[in-house]
Every structure is written in structure tokens, then in C-alpha cells.
């Protein structure tokens, strides 16, 4: 995806990505995570791993609107956001292997991907805790007169946390440039939205903070892209924060530990009919911008990218145990 930012003050324009770009981005996430699942069973990856499969359109569509200068705050379900943001796939895979070559030298793992070059601020695994961080990143930008946007992703379950409430109020009160993106996949672990929140219309809840809020189809990458474009135009224009709900669904269990007893197969199958890759592929086909063959060759190159990432991670080294306590406090520069 081509991005260009016209400095700090001039207007910022992001070239629209092609449908094929978006498709390729989603496919990278899908194939990467399918491999992660295999590697988890093979015990090459450990800890908690939360797959994003089914939700790819949200990260791909929204992040295509950001410039290098913008920032991203995500959750423990963030492989997709990291990849779509441009964190190199080998660095992500190596991190999950616990390697020194990983994005965080193996200290973070699947739930804590951080990447300075792309301003990717985690990888936050305390539900709701990322929202105040995003508010602060945006506060820094607004105090420094920078026209950057901070995109903050979280699930619908997080909206019950006090941190959501406090962060929304602060962002609205101070008119900060935050794009709050709620990925409503309808479940928080085993808890369905209507059993966790009295207000199931999430945009209505967000609007109560005097924040412009709307919903988009989180399975249609073009719909997400368009909705995010609108939101970011408002934010960059100084209109303060925007709340965007993306209605989506996770096709896999909450984590690799989850037997997924609480959802009917029928419900999952119903959503799979609107698999974001399927929808986007059809759109591409209908619009004729590419052929099924083209998509097949994209798949091939994506698979190669994943293979290479695994090989890179495999060949990686381990942080020395002597360095266990580095990065706790920074040694005083004598």
C-alpha cells in the first residue's frame, strides 16, 4: 500500500489502496495465523495465542488509512494489526518463537507485540487498558501541534470496563485525535454482547460522550476502509475523536485454550458465509480488477512470505540469560 504524508502541517492524504492490495493484506494475516495454529499444536509457539481469523477486514481496511506518522494501540489479539501496520512478518513470527530476533527480543510474545519504527504500541493484554494509552499518545500530538492520528482497537467486551468510560470522556473533553475502533465480534470469551451490556447498540453508547459514532460492516474490507476514511478526515480536521464499530466475528476459539462450548456451529457457519476474504475475492472478480489466477498467485507469494518468516524464526537465537534484567530500569548514562 502506498502512503504519503505531507509533513506536519499541510493536508495529509493517503492514496486509496487497491482492492487487490487489501485482499493481499488480509490474506497475509489469514495464512500467517493458520500457520501459527499449526505451530502452536507443534508446541513451537506457547503462552496465550488469540487468533484474528475472520476479523481481517477490520485491521486491513482501517490501517490502510494511516500514515507512517500515525500510531496504533491494539490488544492481545493483535497479529493482524501488527502485520497490516507493517511490522515485518519475520519479526512477529520470531517473537512468538521467543527469539532474540523477535520484535520484542522474545520478551513479549503473541500478546505483546511492540514496534517503534511503525509506532505500534502493543500488544496490551489487560482488557481496556490500551484506551487511556491511546488518549495519551493523542494528547502528546495535540499539545505538540502535530496532526497525527492514534488508532485504538478493542473488543466490545472492553466497553464494560471503567477504562473505556474514562478514556472516552477524556478524549472527547479534550477533543483529541483518537480513532476508537471497537471490533464487535459479539463475544467476550464465552460471554455474548447482550449478556454483558445493557446497551447493545454500541454507537449509541459512544455517542453519549458527544463523540461522532457509527457502525460499519466489519466483514467487508471496502466498507471498513470507507468508514475509517470518513472518521480520519474528521479527526485530522480537528473534529476530535471518532468511535467506529466494526461488526465482525472470530471464526476460531477465543484462544488456543478455549474449547468454544458457548457458540453454536450454526452461528459460526452463518458468519463464515461472509468471510472477508470470500467477499473481497468476489468483489475483485465481479469488478474484474484481477482474475482468480491473480489471486492464486498472490496466495502463493503470501505462503512463501509465511514460510520465510517461519524459517527466520526457526533460525533465530535466544536472548542470553545474563540479560534477563535488562530493560527493567535504564542504566544511568555515566
Amino acid at each position, binding site marked *: 500500500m502506498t502512503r504519503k504524508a505531507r509533513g506536519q502541517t499541510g493536508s495529509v492524504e493517503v492514496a486509496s489502496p487497491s482492492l487487490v492490495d487489501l485482499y493481499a493484506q488480509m490474506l497475509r494475516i489469514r495464512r500467517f495465523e493458520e500457520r501459527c495454529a499449526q505451530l502452536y499444536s507443534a508446541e513451537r509457539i*506457547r*503462552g*496465550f495465542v488469540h487468533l484474528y481469523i475472520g476479523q481481517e477486514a477490520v485491521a486491513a481496511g482501517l490501517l490502510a488509512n494511516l500514515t507512517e506518522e500515525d500510531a496504533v494501540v491494539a490488544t492481545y489479539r493483535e497479529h493482524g494489526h501488527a502485520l497490516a501496520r507493517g511490522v515485518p512478518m519475520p519479526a512477529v513470527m520470531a*517473537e512468538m518463537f*521467543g*527469539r532474540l530476533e523477535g520484535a*520484542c527480543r*522474545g*520478551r*513479549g*510474545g*503473541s*500478546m*505483546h507485540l511492540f514496534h517503534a519504527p511503525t509506532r505500534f504500541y502493543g500488544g*496490551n*493484554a*489487560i*482488557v*481496556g487498558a490500551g484506551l487511556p494509552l491511546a488518549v495519551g499518545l493523542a494528547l502528546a500530538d495535540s499539545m505538540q501541534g502535530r496532526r497525527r492520528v492514534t488508532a485504538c482497537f478493542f473488543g466490545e*467486551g*472492553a466497553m*464494560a*470496563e*471503567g477504562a473505556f468510560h474514562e478514556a472516552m470522556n477524556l478524549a472527547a473533553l479534550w477533543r483529541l485525535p483518537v480513532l476508537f475502533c471497537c471490533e464487535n465480534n459479539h463475544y*467476550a*470469551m*464465552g*460471554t*455474548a454482547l447482550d*449478556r*454483558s*451490556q445493557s446497551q447493545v447498540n454500541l454507537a449509541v453508547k459512544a455517542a453519549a460522550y458527544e463523540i461522532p459514532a457509527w457502525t460499519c460492516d466489519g466483514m467487508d474490507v471496502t466498507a471498513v476502509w470507507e468508514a475509517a476514511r470518513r472518521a480520519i478526515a474528521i479527526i485530522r480536521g480537528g473534529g476530535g475523536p471518532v468511535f467506529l464499530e466494526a461488526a465482525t466475528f472470530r471464526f476460531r476459539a477465543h484462544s488456543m485454550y*478455549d474449547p468454544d*462450548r*458457548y457458540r453454536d456451529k450454526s452461528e459460526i457457519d452463518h458468519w463464515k458465509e461472509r468471510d472477508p476474504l470470500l467477499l473481497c475475492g468476489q468483489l475483485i472478480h465481479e469488478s474484474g480488477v484481477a482474475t482468480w489466477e491473480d489471486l492464486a498467485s498472490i496466495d502463493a507469494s503470501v505462503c512463501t512470505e509465511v514460510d520465510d518468516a517461519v524459517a527466520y524464526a526457526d533460525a533465530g537465537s*535466544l*536472548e542470553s*540469560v545474563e540479560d*534477563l*534484567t535488562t530493560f*527493567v530500569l535504564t542504566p544511568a548514562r555515566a
Partner: protein
Amino acid sequence: MTTYRDAIRESIRDALTRDDRVFLMGEDVGRYGGAFAVSLGLLEEFGESRIRDTPLSEAGFVGAGIGAALGGMRPIVEIMTVNFSLLALDQILNSAASILHMSGGQFNVPLVIRMTTGAGRQLAAQHSHSLECFYAHIPGLRVLAPATLADARGMLWTALEDPDPVVIFEHGTLYNLEGELPSDAGVVDIHSAAVRRPGTDVTLITYGGSLPTCLSAAEALAAEGISAEVIDLRVLRPMDDETVYESVCRTHRAIAVDEGWRSVGLTAEMAARVSENCFYDLDAPIGRVATVEVPIPYAKHLEQAALPGCQRIVDAARQAVGVHG
């Protein structure tokens, strides 16, 4: 054969059957069956009202548990893990632990809070805490750490009969612990520490998830002719001093072992009490084996290097008895 997990489930089932004021509340305790499958099946048996799934609102539902206790119920509130309990710490300290005293004895808060604690499963910095020390610092709480099947089965029962708030820590690595449990296993005392292995040369003082590690360390030490006594504190607040002092005055040496971080943690309290009260009986400084002071890293080799393993305990014990090599 039963497991630690099953023993806790049985004791919850017991309580729900015995007393209609008892209910279980927390994130995913119902439909999901509990993040660690502790409450699996209870929803079907007792229904949505008494096996109550909550939203992601730790401060909210812990506070609601306190209110329900004030209102005459006997809530068992499950905080999925200690890592999330900080969000409810204000409610626990400033309300649950303080209301009896602030009200001049008018209002008890008969609340039981259960949470999983500990590291060892490569869950990284935000999901590997052992913060028992924070709770053990708070007057007005009783803090328990079951490390055996009998305690997993019995402590909850006794806790529910206590008129004051009780916090129970279940170490994540213990859930699959297997063993025999008499079918009539029931209440246990929640006041005293227990000697889990008698010994004569050095006392290993620990609790919870570190008990198995200390028992293996004692085994290894025995092989070298060092007889280690292993004490399971069981109750982290108020602590039972007598059992510990009696042991240390016999062995003249002690090692405090805890999976929490070292500074201002539980090993500090154990060491401070013993050195204050057994001063003239100690032949060596009290060793402290705790977690290295670093946010727990994801990589297995780094995580293992941070945690108090069998070897570090053995080395500390050797040093205490003056054996080096």
C-alpha cells in the same frame, strides 16, 4: 483420584447446595465454565442467577459482591486471575476490608474472593503475576493459599463461614494436581501453617505453587544428606508464627521461598519475623528465594530463569547449612 480443580468445584457445589445465600459470580464462570474450567457444569446445575456471568468490570462486580454480602448473601466472587485484581483493589482495601472497622463493628462483609495466581506458562509480563503480598498487607482481610487437595476442598467451606472477607489464591499450575481425597473431606482450619515434610537441618517456608518445588528440593537435599523441613504457610494473613518459629528453633536455619518478586514481598515478611523472633537460635542468615525482579518475559528460558526453581532452593539451603559445591 481427583484433582485440585475438581476439589474446588466440589466445594463450590457443596456450598451452593448447603446454603441458598451462596452464589458464584465472575467473568465467564457460567457459559464458558470458568477460564480454568473450575466451574464447568455448575451453570446447568444451579442456573444463571447463582452461577452469574459478569461483564468485564472487575471493580464493578467485586464491589457488587461486597454489597451483596452486606445485603445478607454469601457471594463467592471469582476474579479470573490476580493480574486483573488490581482493578478491584480499591474496592477490596477501602470497602471490603475497612467497612467493619469504619462502621464501628456494625457491618460485616462475609465475602469470599477467589483468584488464580502465578507464572510458569509463558504468559508474559501482564499475565504472570504473584501479588499475594499486596493482599497479605491489608488489615481486615484473611488471605488463604490452598496448596493441597484437602485445602482446595476445605478452605472455601471454612472461608464461607467466616463473617469477614477472605481472599483465596489458587496457583494456576496446581489445577491438574492429582490425588486421593476422602469422600467426606470437609472443613479445614484457616488459621495455622502445616509441616508438609519433617526435617532437622533447615526449614523451607513457603506456600501455594511453590510447595511442590520445595518438596522436590527437600527430596534432592535428602539425597545429599541434608534434612529439610518444609512448612506450608497455608494462611498468608494473619500468619501463623508458632509453627514456623518452633521449626526454625529446631533447625536453626531457614529459607523463605515465594514466587512473588523479592523486594517488599512475602519472603521479606517471613525473613523479618523469623530473624526477629528466632534471633538467638539462628545459625545462619535466612535465605530468600523469590522471583527475580523483572516483568516476567515470554521466552521460556528467560521465564524459568526468573522464577524460583528447585535448584535455587537447593543452593540456598546448602549455603545455609554451610555446604558449598
